[in-house]
């Protein structure tokens, strides 16, 4: 089949072509010299890790205003033979490029039809139009329903055009979105950003087959997915992005899952990997988590069980939105959670942050500005605040504890200590937290958690948004506190290499469940496969859960 496809490839018209497209957000280069073309009836698979530049590329193609606002892009884009430069999505739609977003842009209280034909409704004329303008024409509902139904039929799914979006299963919403793009008269190219991420297996199958149908009608499709199997199944050609560079462009027939995973994560990490990995399986269990669920919007944890050994650094990895961040947030009681958590063999009450802190756990949140820091307070305050509140340290007591007074001298001493240990670049403890750079703010967050002298420290995305130098310092600090002070650490990060450099073991979370736990020394492709949900065991598990056990 692959050869057949490549044969007629040259005969078909080019719908979309990128030439030397590049983009940097101020100092930060995210795309560099991207060249590819999309032909009529072709499905192009686009893969890459988080932050590889996929989204930025799609934003350029769809004319999202954020691109123009941040200084436009380099290179040129052609639709057909016509060079284009979109300033808004409307211009892109005008040229026949439609996009199905990861977040649904559907109106929940509307029916499928109403959403498909949003702002393109079919209307009846009435005389009021003459006086008050087009918008007073009435809707022609029957005709709209017919047209909405037709668009849905094209996809080959059985969705009533009168069904409310709010009542639809998530997969149907996805189809409705696609149907909206199809319904446009002039759509030539559809960009789908992770359309199957939210679908069940069966729904994904239907979607893939409807994509093929669309392609047969001559529509070009750019398909972004983390599920490599799907890409292989549906795409004609695959391009792989890594760190803003197009590293590979291959015919789907020439690729397989392992190869793609290698291309995606294949770079060498330059940060020094700590070699002394802890392999002591007999270590004492410090934290035991069973059937944990966490209701954290965007990071739902469904059913997670794992153990943390005393003295180790456990990494939690996985793609964004799969639930890895939800785990520490749930255990620390910041979001509604359920299940059993045992710390030193005592039950940890969930949904009660204070109790958890008292038990000897601490948390460095990924949300530095929201939860982590008191931005308008001094560093002194920031570092000592939680310790004062929770442990009543750095507090002088009078009259048998009736009157509590802040011990400013002790606080000063503590702060200067941490400023020194963590090498925080500041003018001293009296400075306001908001005046520090991102990396140094992160260190303050760490210092704040360390000031509690916890037995177990959760660190969530410690290097998010800070530069390379600062990254290393922060990671070093975490590592050192683990090795030198014996603090057990559970670190969550989206960057696999970062986890591999610091952690002893790494747990990969996918779709709110544990995909697997591997020693940090395992090859990165294995982690990649776990993350992408393509490992054989995991796939099987998912099928079982979907009630579709393969007997053969």
């Amino acid at each position: 089949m692959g050869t057949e496809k490549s044969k007629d490839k040259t005969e078909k018209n080019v719908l979309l072509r990128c030439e030397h497209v590049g983009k940097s957000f101020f100092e930060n280069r995210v795309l560099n010299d991207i060249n590819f073309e999309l032909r009529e009836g072709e499905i192009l698979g686009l893969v890459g890790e988080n932050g590889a530049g996929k989204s930025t590329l799609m934003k350029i193609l769809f004319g999202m205003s954020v691109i123009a606002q941040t200084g436009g892009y380099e290179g040129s884009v052609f639709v057909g033979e016509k060079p284009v430069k979109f300033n808004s999505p409307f211009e892109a739609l005008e040229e026949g490029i439609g996009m199905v977003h990861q977040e649904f842009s559907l109106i929940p209280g509307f029916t499928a039809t109403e959403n498909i034909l949003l702002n393109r409704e079919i209307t009846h004329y009435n005389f009021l139009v003459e006086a008050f303008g087009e918008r007073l024409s009435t809707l022609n509902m029957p005709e709209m329903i017919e047209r909405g139904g037709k668009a849905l039929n094209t996809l080959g799914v059985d969705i009533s055009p009168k069904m409310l979006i709010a009542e639809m299963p998530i997969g149907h919403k996805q189809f409705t979105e696609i149907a909206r793009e199809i319904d446009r008269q002039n759509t030539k190219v559809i960009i789908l950003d992770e359309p199957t991420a939210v679908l069940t297996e069966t729904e994904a199958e239907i979607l893939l087959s409807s994509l093929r149908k669309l392609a047969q009608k001559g529509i070009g499709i750019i398909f972004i997915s983390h599920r490599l199997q799907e890409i292989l199944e549906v795409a004609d050609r695959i391009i792989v992005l890594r760190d803003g560079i197009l590293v590979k462009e291959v015919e789907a027939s020439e690729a397989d899952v392992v190869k793609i995973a290698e291309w995606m994560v294949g770079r060498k990490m330059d940060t020094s990997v700590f070699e002394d990995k802890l392999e002591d399986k007999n270590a004492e269990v410090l934290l035991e988590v069973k059937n944990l669920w966490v209701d954290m919007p965007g990071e739902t944890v469904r059913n997670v069980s794992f153990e943390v050994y005393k003295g180790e650094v456990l990494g939690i990895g996985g793609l964004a939105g799969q639930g890895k961040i939800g785990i520490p947030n749930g255990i620390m009681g910041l979001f509604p959670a359920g299940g059993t958590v045992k710390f030193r063999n005592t039950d940890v009450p969930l949904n009660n942050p204070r109790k958890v802190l008292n038990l000897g756990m601490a948390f460095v949140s990924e949300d530095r500005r929201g939860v982590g820091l008191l931005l308008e307070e001094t560093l002194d305050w920031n570092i000592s605040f939680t310790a004062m509140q929770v442990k009543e340290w750095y507090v002088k007591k009078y009259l048998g504890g009736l009157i509590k007074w802040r011990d400013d001298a002790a606080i000063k001493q503590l702060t200067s200590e941490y400023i020194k240990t963590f090498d925080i670049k500041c003018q001293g403890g009296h400075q306001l937290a908001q005046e520090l750079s991102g990396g140094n703010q992160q260190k303050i967050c760490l210092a704040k958690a360390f000031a509690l002298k916890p037995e177990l420290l959760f660190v969530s995305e410690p290097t998010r948004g800070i530069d390379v130098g600062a990254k290393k310092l922060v990671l070093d600090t975490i590592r050192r506190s683990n090795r030198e002070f014996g603090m057990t650490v559970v670190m969550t990060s989206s960057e696999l290499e970062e986890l591999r450099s610091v952690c002893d073991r790494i747990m990969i979370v996918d779709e709110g469940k544990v995909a697997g736990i591997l020693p940090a020394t395992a090859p990165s492709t294995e982690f990649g496969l776990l993350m992408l949900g393509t490992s054989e065991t995991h796939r099987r598990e998912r099928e079982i859960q979907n009630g579709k056990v393969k007997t053969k």
Partner: protein
Amino acid sequence: MKTTGKRSFKNLLIAYAVPIMFIGLSIFTIPLSGFSPEYLVQEMVIRLARNSFLVLALLIPIIAGMGLNFGMVLGAMAGQIGLIFITDWNIVGIPGMALAMIISIPISIFLGWIAGNILNRAKGREMVTSYILGFFINGIYQFIVLYMMGKAIPIGNPALVLSRGYGIRNAINLEGIRQSLDNLISLNIGKVQIPVATFILISAFCFFIIWFRKTKLGQDMRAVGQDMEVAEAAGIPVNKTRIISMIISTVLAGFGQIIFLQNIGTLNTYNSHDQTGMYSIAALLIGGATVSHATIPNIFLGVVLFHLMFVTSPMAGKNLIGSAMLGEYFRLFISYGIIAISLVLYAWRRHKEKERARMNLRGNS
């Protein structure tokens, strides 16, 4: 199956918590007040006729997602200005009312346009902004009516203008148009008089709303109301749509105030509009509507329940506690307390709904 039935019943209770609470209260206050059924029915009929239109004016901003339009007092003021003019010119009866409405239209459009523009700059805080806006425009209204009228704006009727030569009197007698609409077609059922013409007008307006929802503009408003960003992305001019919804609401509030005052028969120049917004909103909430969802039945149910409480509670309070004055305080407590409670219940309900929506994402525990 049983549990789901139970749950849906519970959901129903939650959804109608406010009206149910009110019906419960009424069961106590009606016998306590000692009013005859005939009087109560007559009072409710009158109040339905005079207040429904005002409450209806709230619907369109709710559709457009702008919450409860406390800014409807702007329309009320425009309506009152229309009434001042027709009283000055001594235009009476139905033509007088119609003319007052026509005069109010451009003023309402202008005020609605201002309100819409301001609210577009305060997205997400529409209710409190429109409330404060009402006070601000009230100041301008007082300035115009108390200082401009008679001087810069010619008002000749000595019954309207203070003897000092400018400024409108505190209370204006609307004898010329008093109950002209209510008595246009009047039907007596038993001893209860029914203002048929007013009800015809109200039902015509209900049909207008139903029709309006089916227009492209109505559809756009619904879209904007549910998700501004999606609507924007689909190319619907969000801000413009919101302004139009405010304008329509303000114009209708102006009409509503004219209908209201033709029934009352007296215009308190400086105060008649004060409570319009508050009471209409209270009635709507009590009818089971929420900040984001309101239907036509909500309106009629709400007007009846709210005013039933209003009429019976002072007397019930007096008879219960034995002091006339405490009866009045009882009424205040009931009527304002209930607005607070229904807003709190709304927030609670939304929280519950959100929780329920996410329920399936949680573990089996």
